[in-house]
Structure formats: C-alpha cells, structure tokens
C-alpha cells in the first residue's frame, strides 16, 4: 500500500511538473491565464468587440516596436483616415507577447506587435494575418562568469517564458547538445533579469533589446555569450481584417509612414526615440537605461534596413530560418502537429502591404502629420 501511494505520488508530481513546464513553455507564463484579467497593469483596460474600434496590443519596453507605436499614436493622418470610415484605434500596452496573445485569442484586442516566437504560437492557436515585419533585431544571452553556450549546462538561466528570447535560447543551446532539462530555467519578467544576474540569483539570462545592451552598459563584468536574431511582426486577427479591412490598411499605411519619417533624418529618429523612452517610463515606471542615441542606433540597425519593403523575409521561413526553427522548437514543446507549419505559412499575407505600397498616394505614405506633444 505504501509503495502504491509513493508510486502514485511520484506520478502525480511528475505529471504536475510536466503540466507546469508545458504551461510555462507554451507561453502561458507563471502568471496563470485567468489572472491576466486581474493583472494590475491590465485590469483597467477596456476592450471592444466592435469591429469599428481596433484595439492594438503593443510592448513599449521592446525598443524598436515601441518607437513605431509611439509614432502611430501621434499620427493624425491615421486618426483622420479611420474617422472617415467610422473607426478608431486604441493602444494597449503589455509586458510581453504571451500576454498580448492572451487577449487577442479572446477577442479583446484585434492586432498585436510582438516578437517572432509569440507570433508563431499565436498563428497556431488563432486565425491571424501577418502582413509586415517590424524589425529584424536580436536577442542575447548575457552572463557574468560563463564564457560559452556550453558552459550553461547545469546553470540557472533567467528568461521571460514564451518569448522570442526564450525560444532563441533553446535553439542556440540545442546546437551545443543542451536541452531545457540540462539547465535550470528561472522564469522572470524582463525587467528583473539584469538585477537578478548582478546579485547572483541566476548565472545568465536571455533577453531581447534593449535589456542586454542596458545590462552590459550598467555592469562591466557582464559579457555576451551569444547573440541571435529575433524578429518582431505585425499580426491582425483574421476577423478584424475581414470585418474592417479598410481600417487594417490604414494602420499598415501608418506603419509605412512612420518608417519613412524615421528614415528622413536623424533628428526625427531622436525625437521618436525620446517618445519611446517616455512611453517606457510611463508603462514600467522606470527610466530605461538606454538614451535616445542608443535607441536610435538600434532602430537604424534593426528596423530601417527593411523600411522600403518590410515583408517577412523569405529566408526566415526556409528550413534553418528563424521562424521555421522557432516553429520546430514549439512543436517539440507543445506537441503541435507538424502539418501546422502550413498554418504559419498561410498566416503570412503580403497583400495588405502590397496594397498600401501600390497606392502610396491613396494611403498618403509620403505625407506626415504627427502630434508633437505626448500621445495617448
């Protein structure tokens, strides 16, 4: 009897561990799903099921996409174009992509700007369109005492679950023959990673910019173990595109417009960077460690290179490409059937971007009218 009880307990614990780990890896975060409505940052958000009101989920702390959103908030042309078709746009800030996915799958938000891993997962769970690339950036693995990726074995690694940096970490480790069970993943919010490494609570962390750059600047004994590409993308729910396609096109146009405006001169870049800093502070309550010059540099290297045609790179969809590798990793973790890669491929739709780029005058992508005060 005692043996059976022990056996049963062991099974129970193992099962619970599996569930818990799947839960974490699948991006549902250590914050239980049902708690996100009660999350102190989101509890007061108001959403609308009205297709005329577009609720857009953003992550201000992600530097590159944060800048785009700050411009869109101040884009008077966008506001006027939406008003003309009886629509409007609202912006909602989230800490990471898995949080914004939570609300999109429930129909609370209609579009998201998020990293590659949460966007791929979203494509597998919910019908979406991915019309445009926001940035081709990078995430980094930062450590204090370790030197190579292989040194991560048996170490504690801080990471925000379900994000591009987490998946990238696992992919990079896999080259060295390491899997998740060879390390100790410590889930934490992006804002906690640097301080945790500094006080020795963890041995390394994986994060997207600007967190690694901030950390390296603040702590001279930190070093980069690896830097790997991460993409950010625009994603719309299919439903909103089908019900209010004109609004979606105007929003894409606003995005293109912002790229062109940023590319105009460095002064624009700096202004937008400052808006980004203000936006981060307003949301997180903390002053970001990067200044506007540093943010500008990131924007130049990660966003502007593909400003002319911000389509999702073909290479990323091929075998060995970033998105394909993230998908392969996601399957192993969550058991999605292999055939659903088609779902991801079919989610990537260039027609919206094509439409906007083919009609520059109609969508006024060369015209600029931004409110210079603090946006909503």
């Amino acid at each position: 009897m005692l043996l059976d009880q022990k056996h049963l307990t062991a099974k129970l614990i193992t099962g619970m561990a599996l569930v818990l780990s799947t839960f974490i890896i699948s991006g549902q975060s250590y914050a239980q799903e049902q708690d996100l409505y009660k999350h102190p940052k989101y509890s007061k958000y108001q959403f609308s099921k009205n297709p005329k009101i577009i609720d857009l989920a953003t992550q201000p702390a992600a530097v590159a996409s944060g800048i785009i959103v700050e411009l869109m908030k101040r884009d008077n042309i966008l506001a006027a174009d939406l008003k003309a078709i009886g629509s409007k746009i609202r912006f909602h800030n989230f800490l990471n992509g898995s949080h914004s996915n939570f609300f999109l799958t429930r129909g609370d938000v209609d579009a998201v700007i998020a990293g590659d891993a949460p966007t791929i997962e979203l494509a597998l769970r919910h019908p979406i369109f991915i019309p445009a690339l926001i940035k081709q950036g990078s995430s980094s693995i930062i450590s204090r005492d370790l030197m190579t990726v292989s040194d991560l074995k048996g170490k504690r690694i801080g990471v925000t679950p379900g994000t591009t940096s987490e998946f990238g970490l696992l992919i990079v480790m896999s080259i060295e023959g390491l899997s998740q069970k060879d390390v100790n993943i410590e889930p934490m919010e992006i804002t906690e990673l640097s301080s945790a490494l500094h006080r020795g609570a963890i041995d390394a962390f994986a994060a997207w910019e600007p967190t690694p750059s901030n950390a390296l600047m603040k702590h001279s004994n930190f070093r980069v173990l690896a830097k790997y590409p991460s993409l950010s993308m625009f994603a719309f729910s299919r439903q909103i595109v089908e019900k209010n396609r004109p609004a979606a096109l105007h929003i894409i146009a606003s995005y293109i417009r912002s790229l062109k405006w940023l590319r105009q001169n460095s002064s624009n870049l700096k202004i937008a960077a400052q808006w980004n800093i203000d936006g981060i502070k307003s949301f997180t309550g903390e002053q970001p460690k990067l200044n506007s010059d540093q943010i500008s540099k990131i924007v130049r290297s990660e966003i502007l290179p593909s400003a002319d045609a911000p389509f999702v790179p073909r290479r990323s969809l091929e075998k060995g490409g970033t998105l394909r590798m993230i998908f392969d990793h996601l399957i192993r973790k969550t058991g999605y059937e292999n055939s659903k890669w088609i779902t991801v491929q079919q989610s990537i739709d260039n027609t919206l971007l094509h439409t906007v780029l083919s009609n520059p005058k109609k969508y006024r992508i060369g015209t600029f009218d931004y409110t210079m005060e603090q946006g909503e």
Partner: protein
Amino acid sequence: MFGLPYSGYKGSWQIYKSEAFKNLNLIAELKKHELMHKFEQQIQTSRTIASNKIIQRTSTDNKAEDLLKLFQNIFDEHPDISLLDPDTKRILANSSGIKKGSDSEYFASIKDIKPDILHEELVFYKSSSGTIYAILLLPVNKPSDSWHKRTNALLAVQIDLTQWFASTLHTTPEMGSTGEVIIIDDKKVLLSALKHKLSDGNTPNPMQYTASTKSADYAVMGVDNMLHETDYRGVEVLASVRYIQATPGSGLGIIVKMDKSEVFEPILESFKYLTFISLGLLALLIALANAVSRWLSAPIEKLADTAKKISEGDLGARAQITGRQDVDVLASAFNTMAEKLEEWNRELESEVEKRTLALLDATTKLNASKEKLSIALSAGHIGMYDINFKTGTVDINNEYAKMLGYQNAEDLHESINSWKERLHPLDRDSSAEVFDAFIKGAIPEYATEFRLRSKNGDWVWILSTGKIIEYDEKGSPVRMLGTHLDITDRKKNEQMLMDREEKYRTLSTRFNTLLEANPDVVIVLSPDMKIIWANKAAEETFDSSVNEIIGKTCCEFWYKSDSGCVDCQAKKCLSSGDLEDYTIESHDKRTWDIRSVAITDEAGKSSNIIIFGRDITDNKKLEEQLLQAQKMEAVGQLAGGIAHDFNNILTGIIGYASLLQMKASDNSSVKSDAANIIHAAERAAEMTKNLLTFSRKQIFNYYTINLNEIISRTMKIAGRLIREDIEIKTEFKNDPLYITADESQLQQVLMNLITNARDAMQHGGRLLITTEITELDEEFVKLHNIGSQGSYVVWSVSDTGIGMDEETKRKIFEPFFTTKEVGKGTGLGLSMVYGIIKQHKGHITVYSSPGEGTTFRIYLSAASKEKSAAAKSEDKHPMPFGKGETILVAEDDYALRGMTESLLTEFGYKAIVAENGEEAIELFILNKDKIDALLFDITMPKMGGVQAYMEIKKTAPDIRFLFYTGYAKDLISEKDYPFDITKLIQKPVSPQELLSKLREILDA
C-alpha cells in the same frame, strides 16, 4: 604542495581563456563590420544604379549599356554589371559587351529567382576559372514612385569575392599560426579557401564543400557567439562566429578560429614547470617523514615484541627500560600490568580446579536421572523432543522415532523443517498457529494434536505437549522440551462414535420430519396414559402447544374430560399389545378414526402407545351427501323415464285433439271439447315437464341474465300470491349480478320458494330475498360438487316461518315429499327447484330449525356480463303446408305414428310410415325415388332412428332428415346422435312446430 600550483594554474587558465575569447571575439567583430560595411556600400551603390532613369526604362538601345559600362569603370571592383530580363534572366544590357539576349555566366545560379523580387538578393557562384563571385540582384522598377506587380528588369552586379574577402580572410598576429577565418553562405557552403586539409587529407574547394561544424550551424542561424569545437580537421579549436545580413533575404557567416593548443600553450608550459617542482618537493617531504617516523617508532616496536611474548604465554616477559624518559614511563606501566596478569592467572587456575571437581559430581548425578527418565518414557511409549531454536536442531528419543515407524532416533533425522514437512497438509496451518502463539507467549501452554506421516506413509495422530526451558537475555525462547503421544487409536474410536451419532441424528430427523408432516394427529402415551410426545397436527387439533399437551391425557383434549375414558381402547391396546382401530366422536361433534399401536420392548412388553387420529367428519358428510345425491338421482331416473313415456302419450292426445279442433266448426261443441282435451293434456304435460326438470331431463335455454332483474320482475307477479301479513324485502348487495341461466326456470324456482315460504308463515311473517357475490374456495366447491372455485352468486330466500326439523330437511327435495295435506301440493315443487339448480351446475342448501324459520341458499356461478337475450318469438305464423313431398316416418308409438301420418297428409304431404328402423329401411328401398325426407324417432325397438338413417345414407347421402325424441337434447350423447342438433326436435312437439321444422328442412 600540489594544491597551490594547481590553483594557480586553474586561475591562469581562466584568465587565458577569457583573454583568448575576448581577442577572437574582437577580431570576429571587426571582420564582421568590415564586410558588412562593404555590403552596405555595395547595396547603396547598386540602388543608385537601379534608380537611374535610363536604367529604369530598360530600353533596348545602347544608352543603358553605355551607362552600365560607365558604372563599371567607376566602381572597378565589378567585373560585370548587367540588366536582365526578370522572367528569362537573359541579358538585356551588359557592361562587358556580352551579347543581348544571351545567358550570363551565372545564369544557373539565378534562373530560379522570382521575377518580382521585392528587395536585393545575393547569390554566389564559381566561374569556370575557379573564381568565386557574388551576384547582387536588385529590382529595377519603372520610373515612378509606385509599385508594380512585376519588376521591369533585374540589375545584376557581379562582385569578385576573392578581392572582397582578401582583407577579411587575413589573419592577425593575435590569431597565432593556427588562426583562420572561414566564410560560408546561408547554406553553410564554403565561400573562402581553407587553410588546412580535411581530416581525410582532402583539400576542400569553395562552393563545393559544405561545412558541418557547430560554428557553421551557428553562423547560418544568424547567431553570434563563442565556442569550443572540433574543426574540419578534427582539431580542438576556439571559434568566434558572426553572421552578416548582407541583404534582407541572404547573408554570410564568418568563423574566426584558433587551435586550442596554441591558445593555451603558454599556460601549459607554466603548468609543466609547476608540476615538476611540486613533484620534487613532494618527494623530499616523503623522505623526511620516513626518517622521522623510524626514529619515533623503534622503542614502540620493542614494546610490541614484549606484548607478543606475553600473549604467547610467557607471562614472565618484561619490557626493557631504555633511558628515554617518554618511552620508559610506558615500559614501567607495561611491566606492572604484566605482573598483575601473572598473579591473576595463578588464582584463576586454582578456581578452575575446584569447579571442575564439582562439575564431575553433578554430571554423574545428571546421567543417573537421565537414565531413569529414558526408562519411564520407553515404558509409557512417550516420545520426547528437545528443540534448540538457535541452532534449529531437534533431539529426539527412540520412542519418538518408533512412533513414526523408525527403528531408533538415529534413523530419523528430525529438525523443525522436517517436522513441518511431515505434518498433514490439513494440520499445518493450525499447528503452526498454535506453535507460534506459544513461542510468542500468547498462550501459556503448548498442547495440540496433529498428524505426522510415518515412514510407510500412514498418518499417525500425535498429542504434542511442550515447555520452554531456556530463554536468552532478550527473553526469546532458546530451548523447548516436549513429548509426543500416539493417539491414533483414540482418534479412530472418536470418529466411529461421531459417525454413529450422525447416523442416529439423521434417522431421528427423518422420523421426526415424517411425523411432523403427517396431517393426522400422532401422540405417544406413556404407560400411565400421559402424552409424552405430540406432532404439529396434534398441536393444531388440540389448539395447544407441545409443552401444554405433554403430561396430559388424550381424553382431556378429545373429550375435555380429565376423569379418564370409560372403556379406553388405548388402555386395551397397551395391555394386549394388539393394534386397535376404533371411531370416536369428540366433544365438538367431530368424528375421528383412531388407531392405537403399542410399542414393545425387546421382551415384548408394551412400554408406550402411539395414537394415530384422523378426522373423518367431513368425509362422512360427503358420504351422506353422496348417498342422498345417488338417491335423488335414482328417483330422478325413474321420474324421467315415466315422464318420457307420458310425453309420447300426451303428444298423441294433443295432436289428435288439435286436428279435431281444426276440423270442427267454430260453434260446435266438438271444438270446445277438443280445447278442453288439449288443456288437460297440457296440464299433464306440465307435470311431466316438472318431473323432467327434477330429473334434469328438461331442455333449458341458457342466457346471461341479471339475476336481480329477474327477481324484481318475478316479485311483481309473485307479490299477488303473498298475503298482506307477510312483509317482503329484497336486498341486492351487488348490482347487477350476472349469471348464465334459463330465465323462466329461475322464475319457477323463485315462485316455488316463495310459495313454500308463504305456506310456512300462516300467521304472517317476513320474507327476505337477498343476492350477493362471493368467492368459493376449492374445498367448498369440491364438497358440494358444484364446479370450480371462483366467483359465485349467493341467492337467499329466508322466511320467519315454522321451520323444519332435521328429518324434514333431509327429505324436502325428494319428489312427491310434502308436509301438506293430501291434495294441497304435488310434492314436486322443491324437487323441481333442486333439479333446476343442479341443472344450472349450482348448489342449494337449507338452514332451518323448528320455530326458527327457514333459509334456502342457492349458489350459482357468476357470469361476466349480460348478453342480449334473443327475444323468444312466438310462432304466430300459420301452419306451413307441404308441396306434395313424400315423408318417410319411423315411430314406434302407435298413436303418435298415426297422428303424425294424419297431420302430414292433412297439410299437403304424402306420408309413408314404419314402426321401427328396420322397416323404415325396407320402405325406403322400395320408395327411394319418391321419398323427399325422413322423420325418425331416435329411440325405437329393433333399430333406432339414427342407425336406420346411417344405412339409408349409404345409398342416398343427400337425403334430408329430421329426428325427434322424448329425451332432453343435452342428455343425448354425440355417440347417440352425431348430427346437427337443429335437426332434432323435442317431444311433445306441437303440429305447428313439427310442420315448421319439416318445411325448414325441405326448403334448406
């Protein structure tokens, strides 16, 4: 000595490693930026060319080509710049003079690229001369700020990578002699030449070799990082990887590596030197330690030698005092100890000697006791065992072994396990349980029985007893001593006794069951006539329990008398010993058949009486009823026979009188005389009918009727017959009440009963008629022979008249019995009632006592519901005439024969008459062709009507026939009359009926 150098080495190693990584990373980063810058510049330049309006027009004139040549001269690192058709990839314009419309050298590398590329693409190829080139493809759009679905042309800028990569591939001094830079494309294809050969000795060529190292994997993933790995030679290296996103869709990987051995060479040297010094120091230390230990240990060794001598028995050995203070103290103490040891040894030896003598004495006495015990055990055939739980051994005596068929104890090697194996399988568990319980102290004594298998395989019953005689310090048993006694014989005897008892019990139980199940009273009397045993039937009969019965006499129960029986038959039986059968009437007027049987002992003397008593009261009643019924039956038969003959005579009288009446004129006295004759004959016929009714030979017409309604209707008429001083009351407890009956007969019954009741109440009284439905059980219906159990209608007619005595009650249903004066009654009324009820398969009882009135109770089987009774239609049709048909009549009665002939002739038929069946056949043969129908009496001398018909039918199967009879139809069996019952008419038959039926037969 070793730890410090090692720690120093380890620390240096980390520092070296860190520095090496840092350097390589730096180099890789620089090379990445260098190459990236080149690509960025190239793309910008190419975009400038692609955005040129002349180029955008992609005209086929020479302007584009001239422009391309110009650009080539300006940007001299490009061997070729071409404009290509986006679909065919053929040259539209070219800077090197290649013919338009032809394929470029790198056609194979670009042919699969989509025509409407959205951004720059980079492809690599190897020329025929072995030079590696990159082709930068850019979309060329039409000269407007708009996107089209297809590009106008593709601008292909050829880049000589050998020149491009030259500086990138250059290794710096920091990279040492083993440093190397490798460039690969997105598919890990080598774009630069390798410094070394592969592990298999081959030299890999760019564009023909695909890298398979971890660094290559990282590179194509776009990961920048630092790692240890084994390179393409199989050598361990440190590598730094960088990825360059050359165009939005493609990139390059740079791997900067250095052999590990070269990186860590300096520190390895240090490590060797440190190791050598450490080893030397270690050796010195060991030697020094050895010398010191030898100096310290010499006196101790001597001391050890002395101790060894003492241990070997030389108690006089002593340690040497050396003069070294620290050792001498130890030696002195050692010598003191040795002296003490010697002294104790002497004392010990003395004590041992004393005890040895005492032991010898005790042993002698013990052996004597043992001998006595052994003799006692042998004499009593008692086996003995001695178990040692520690060793598991069991010592036994010879008796133990002999019990099991062995010669002696030595032949039987007993142990606890062998004992267990020898146990009977059925005794194993119980024996083990008892044994364990005793060993654990759960039970105070050990005594148990079990079977052991003997040498020859038989089972021997053993009574085993035992006692623990030794415990260890923890209280666990160590030794147990016990005995075995062979009880096989005792067990056999016990089994025999048990078998006998079982047999006896079984017989006793069967006997008891038999007696208890007997429905008759069975009691056993003692010689003094007291009941000593009684069965269940006795309990029920005497309405007392067995305990109440026992001790009393049977007279007390049968006669309610405790004064003993006069002339007791049971006493007679006891004294004679003979069986006595007799009948008694108990106090409750029940009749009993008694049999007394004497139980005799072996000497033949009667010791007890068994009484069997059977209640025959009901049987007697039944017999009386049967006798009465038989008597009534006999009377009925007689009456029926007479009535039958009468009917025939009356038919003749009525028939002739009818004819006379018909022929006479209306005013003549002959007609009225004829009417009187008919009336008188009808009255006589009525009497015979009543007789027939009594004898149950009357024909009834049964319908389902409501009895209550019949009574109500009848009472309306009967009310006139009853005097006013008689109160009439009817009570219908269930309404409606359906029965299947002949309505007119029931009316007759009621009329007769009312008449009798009226006659019994000469001075007034009350007449009560009730009906109800009741359930009769099987016993009742069987007793009164009235059919089957079920629902019955009970119809009572009660009066408060003078009543009847028993004698009168017994006879009232007999025909012609009457208590009235002569001429006041025929004496047939109640007999007719009896006959009617019996014919209805019912039952009638009478309850009466003198002065107490009389109640007649009639039981009739209840029916389900009323069926509509067909209205009896009176035949008012005129006499049907014949059509000249010839009828053969067979009738043995002279008058009837004559009447029938006259009737037929009168009414248009021709009649041929015969006296019996034989004659009828003869006449038929003679007149076969003329005869249309047969009219035969069934019962005739010589040959009956049916038999005659059967003969005639052989020759004339279709002959029509009609039978008539003086008997009731339902009393004629199928054997006597196997034909359609509608072709049979009942005498006396009126002319009307006869002629109608005959006409019906002829017209069918």
